[in-house]
């Protein structure tokens, strides 16, 4: 899947998700998905995807980043992920996922980010 198509699908899935929508009002943060072979910066504003930067440059800002091998991201995107690929905590404790940056911002948005991350199981990944 082309990263442009991925960004459109990811934004549509997130903005339409009723569980995120139920508590989205203050879901505001900017994060980097580093999938090794593809990168994207997702900018959330008040629960909606404001912008997805699919060609991040070195100085483009983000609050926190998730970095892992392309193979790990493909595991995240299985409809039913295998054990230890079923979430960011599992994969950071037991696999090669690294969570970097201001993790307090991640924690402040953890409920909704967790739900959004699991949308990869429906949307897929561009690697």
């Amino acid at each position, binding site marked *: 899947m082309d990263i442009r198509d991925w960004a459109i699908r990811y934004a549509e899935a997130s903005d339409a998700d009723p569980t995120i929508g139920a508590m989205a009002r203050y879901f505001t943060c900017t994060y980097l998905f580093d999938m090794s072979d593809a990168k994207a910066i997702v900018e959330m504003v008040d629960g909606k995807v404001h912008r997805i930067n699919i060609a991040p440059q070195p100085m483009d800002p983000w609050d926190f980043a998730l970095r892992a091998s392309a193979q790990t991201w493909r595991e995240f995107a299985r409809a*039913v*992920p295998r*054990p*230890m690929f*079923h*979430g*960011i*905590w*599992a994969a950071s*404790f*037991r696999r090669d996922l690294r969570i970097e940056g201001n*993790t*307090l911002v991640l*924690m*402040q948005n*953890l*409920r909704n980010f*967790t739900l959004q991350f*699991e949308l990869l*199981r429906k949307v897929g990944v561009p690697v």
Partner: protein
Amino acid sequence: MAKHSPVIGRYVTIDVDGCEYKVFYLQNGQGVPLVCQHTAGCHNHQWRDLLEDEEITRHYNVIAYDLARHGKSDPPLNKEWWKEEYRLTADHYVNFIVAFCDALELKNPIFMGSSFGGNVALQLALRKPDRFRAVIPVEAAAHAPGFFLDVWRHPHANAAQVCASGVWDLMAPQSPDRDRWLTWHYYTQGSEAFRGDLYFYSVDHDLRDSLAKIDTRRCPVVMMTGTYDYLTPPDATEKTAAGIPGGIYIEMEDIGHFPMSENYPVFRVYLREALRIIRERTG
């Protein structure tokens, strides 16, 4: 006609190391006492389906209590507890459980706990082998470092959501949405106690050099862990059980760290097997 559950709730007041605790517990069934400990930062409603499982309660007196500071069990009533940081120790935890079982005059109970309840089950097998018929440590290991984190109660984040969503992927994706969200709901209620519980779980509990001293002839140990548990992964439990002479390990497929709460129909299959093994060993 009112649709009442057979489960009843009561309070009992106990003294533990000079602390006065009014402990709330749920109970249903008859026969061998089966005492159940919830996970860290949670409460006894995690055992809701076991408490109403007629096949189990026909032969077992299921008792699920709230540890002090959890659910409906308050902090110590005779202490200014708000002036101290809460950190649960192995000594106090063991003493609490024994005092509770003594207060209810339970004879040879089976003790079952999950996560930090599973780790204390190992402590009971080591320290109090003649007080318990057997223990079932669920999602437990000799040592479980890495979860005593400041973020569980950081004032700049919503601690209820951090705790509840922080443990979200301790559950298996196959577990039903309804039960995973109930577990999430419970975890929004115990954030202040969660970190203090994890002091025991990740710091004070360390039986790596003591496993060989556990006497399973006096107190059988049947350990069970789910394949989706990243915190106490299956190999950690298997290694712990292998270090206990006579220790038994059962791996639970497609379930996580809160098996009784996230997917009881799957959990009960393994629980019945654990109870069968204990019956064989203890009569």
